[in-house]
């Protein structure tokens, strides 16, 4: 298949060999599970259990709230011991509302509905079941999958792209799941394709995962699913980039893939969809890579949602040396954390303990305008120019240089020889921008309120004046009539 060119991109050291050959193993059952109510983009789910309730594995414990949200299920059987705040993998580092479950060790499932022929279901039904299973994008975006299916079905899908890029260094969770569960993934892909009536189905996998490609190709034999090897490059697994390399199309600025008839899902999401539709199992676990130079035995585990990260680290035999930095996700876009009591959530793809030399950070020096960052940007931005505008507090100029188009992939920071934290500036400026826009919206809303109020007052005045005028006219008419009558009377006299 013909692939299309990408601009920019970088080739960070993969370090996937640390964990790539390690089979997915199930973690032993933790005593306590901490299940946050918000593990997805949108509104947090609302709990439907109380402290002291006994729950079964897979039981609904919090239900989706509003249009963009996702339901949450009990990862194991046990007792709800707390409803309250617990540390969570959130950028703010603040505790978030969490359901704490004490496992009873029985792992007793709810009765799951098995469906032998899922294609007999209607597409709407499939989307509804995906929603009920609490499935979100497992590639890291954690957008509710059912919503994506519904939006795409109504706008029409030409090409369904399954993302098996996994371009972040260290991470091998998608690699492993494709090697070990290819048949299930291919079935899940076909269900997604059926749910949105996709005409073409492409699975893009970076060519540094030959075993995964082979396994997926074998499983795809005789199906309309096409498995495509893509060149290994970061950020190949970013939605915009994988669309570009496979179809040559670009999403118009400010738009969504659906605008150009494309739908992108992660391969691990396809597995979750298959499990949900075929076996009625909600999303209660995920594959996580534990790796990094400071981890003794890097590996891949299937962890229940809510498992404290510390248990994963213990499972990997702990640290081989003190970690300079702990990261959730990949090193390019992942998020630092310090408290190892945070739980695994639906979007947790990796737990990394990195050494100082792996981080490779140095004190920033002056920008030499070498334009390496420009060459690295996959979006065609000029990071050096954006940063100089942000430093001068000229956000409008930074936006005109494309600040809003930045996908925060980190390629520019990664290659900058001056070690300038470019992405840090962009994130900070985007935050400021969001605040400004919120303030503006609020001002506009206030202005609108004031306007309506003024209008109302003006209307009332007008009405009052009109009423007064009417009364006056009526009075005058009456008087005139009276006068006329009087006149007539005198005349007749």
């Amino acid at each position, binding site marked *: 298949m013909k692939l299309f060119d990408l*601009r920019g991109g970088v080739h*960070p*050291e993969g370090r996937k060999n640390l964990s790539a050959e390690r089979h997915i193993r199930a973690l032993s059952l933790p005593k306590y599970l901490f299940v946050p109510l918000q593990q997805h983009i949108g509104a947090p789910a609302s709990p439907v259990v109380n402290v002291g309730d006994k729950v079964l594995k897979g039981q609904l414990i919090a239900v989706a709230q509003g249009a963009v949200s996702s339901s949450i299920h009990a990862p194991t059987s046990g007792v709800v011991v707390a409803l309250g705040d617990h540390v969570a993998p959130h950028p703010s*580092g603040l505790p978030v509302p969490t359901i704490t479950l004490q496992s009873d060790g029985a792992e007793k499932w709810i009765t799951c509905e098995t469906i032998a022929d899922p294609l007999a279901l209607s597409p709407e039904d499939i989307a509804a079941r995906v929603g009920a299973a609490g499935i979100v994008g497992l590639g890291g975006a954690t957008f509710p999958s059912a919503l994506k299916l519904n939006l795409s079905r109504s706008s*029409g899908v*030409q*090409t369904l792209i399954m993302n098996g890029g996994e371009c972040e*260094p260290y991470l091998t969770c998608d690699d492993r799941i494709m090697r070990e569960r290819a048949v299930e993934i291919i079935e899940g892909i076909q269900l997604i394709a059926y749910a949105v009536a996709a005409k073409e189905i492409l699975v893009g996998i970076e060519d540094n995962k030959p075993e995964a490609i082979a396994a997926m190709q074998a499983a795809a034999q005789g199906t309309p699913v096409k498995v495509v090897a893509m060149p290994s490059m970061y950020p190949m697994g970013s939605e*915009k980039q994988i669309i570009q390399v496979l179809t040559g*199309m*670009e*999403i*118009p*600025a*400010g*738009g969504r893939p659906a*605008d*150009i*008839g494309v739908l992108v899902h992660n391969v691990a999401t396809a597995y979750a969809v298959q499990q949900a539709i075929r076996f009625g199992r909600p999303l209660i676990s995920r594959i996580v890579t534990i790796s990094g130079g400071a981890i003794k035995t890097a590996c891949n585990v299937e962890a229940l949602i809510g498992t404290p990260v510390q248990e994963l680290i213990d499972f990997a035999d702990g640290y081989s040396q003190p970690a300079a*930095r702990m*990261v959730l996700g990949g*090193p*390019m*876009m*992942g*998020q*630092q954390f*310090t408290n190892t009591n945070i739980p695994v959530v639906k979007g947790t793809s990796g737990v990394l303990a*990195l050494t100082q030399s*792996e*981080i*490779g*950070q140095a004190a920033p*020096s*002056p920008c*030499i*305008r*070498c*334009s390496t960052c*420009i060459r690295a940007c*996959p*979006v*065609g*931005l*000029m990071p*050096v*120019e954006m940063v100089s505008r942000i430093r001068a507090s000229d956000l409008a100029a930074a936006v005109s240089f*494309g600040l809003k*188009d930045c996908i*925060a992939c*980190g390629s520019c*920071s*990664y*290659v900058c*020889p001056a*070690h300038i*934290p470019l*992405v*840090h500036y962009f*994130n900070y400026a985007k935050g400021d921008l969001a605040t400004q826009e919120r303030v503006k919206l609020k001002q506009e809303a206030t202005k609108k309120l004031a306007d309506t109020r003024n209008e109302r007052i003006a209307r009332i005045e007008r009405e009052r004046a009109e009423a007064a005028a009417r009364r006056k006219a009526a009075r005058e008419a009456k008087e005139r009539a009276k006068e006329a009558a009087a006149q007539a009377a005198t005349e007749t006299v």
Partner: protein
Amino acid sequence: MTPIAHSPHAHAPVSIGKVMGTVLLALTPATLFGFWLYGWPAINLWAISIIAAIVGEALVVRMQGRAVRPVIMDGSGILTAWLLAISLPPFAPWWIAVLGSLFAVIIGKQVFGGLGQNVFNPAMAARVMLLISFPLEMTSWIAPDANAPGFMDSLRVTFMSQHMDGMASASLLGHVKTEFTRGVGLDQALAGYYSPLHMLLGSRAGSLGESAALLLLIGGLFLIARRIITWHAPVAMLLGVAVPALIFNAINANHYAGPMYHLLSGGLMLGAFFIVTDPVTSPNTATGQLIFGFGCGLFTWIVRTWGGYPEGVAFAVMLMNTLTPLIDQYVKPRIYGRDRKGAALTANKGA
């Protein structure tokens, strides 16, 4: 709580120091060759230039109350002085090197606000200053095949401006220019004076490093291979010289020298691979660098052909430096999902 570090949590194994170091490495063969050709005076001059740059920069940075160590350690001042040194006549007196280096790092760089802020390439700015202020010292070239002076002699050359009798020689470009003013045509002027092979190998009178076109070319290719520079500006500059040379040579071969002569002489190779590729003073985008490089080449050819000076690289680079901000303003990459003007692309569903 420890401040949360932002992604990415990985970094390419690069730094400003490493970039500068690689460039210095690429310059080394041509420089050593120059030392071998011209002997101790060239080495003295090179060493003095670098020491002057380090000391001068350290003093100024200190006066500004900034940390001295990182500024010196980034290697940019050394590179500037090195580039200047190998563009000087090898037997120039010591104060030429000192003045040039100080001018380059202080006026050419620190006054603008330090590394990354300067408008002009510091080495070229210093060279132009020297050329205008001290035309005599800056155009006294030495033929390399004469017996190179020993160390003690070299001290007299460098520090006491002692002339080495019988060794004075014009650089090729200078020679041709002089002959032109005397009304001598190219075929005669070049007779016995020019052989492309000699030019390539550097056994010709010229500045310290710029004589060795071949070694500079190799150094430049090394930098391209190491992704320190891209091919755009160098190739464009060579074309900027070769194209007009080819056209005018075809029109009047006795008055206009051909492309080979231009490409291999003077500071062109040095300029193409080490000067117009200066990150700070060249445009940001590939297209911008093509325009910039071609402009540098074209103006070099114009100065050489019609200007008052035999060599034009430094003038051409400074002229184009002033256009860099303009080029950067007009030549920008197209942003993903937008057209060249920045408007969102129109959705083209299921194409």
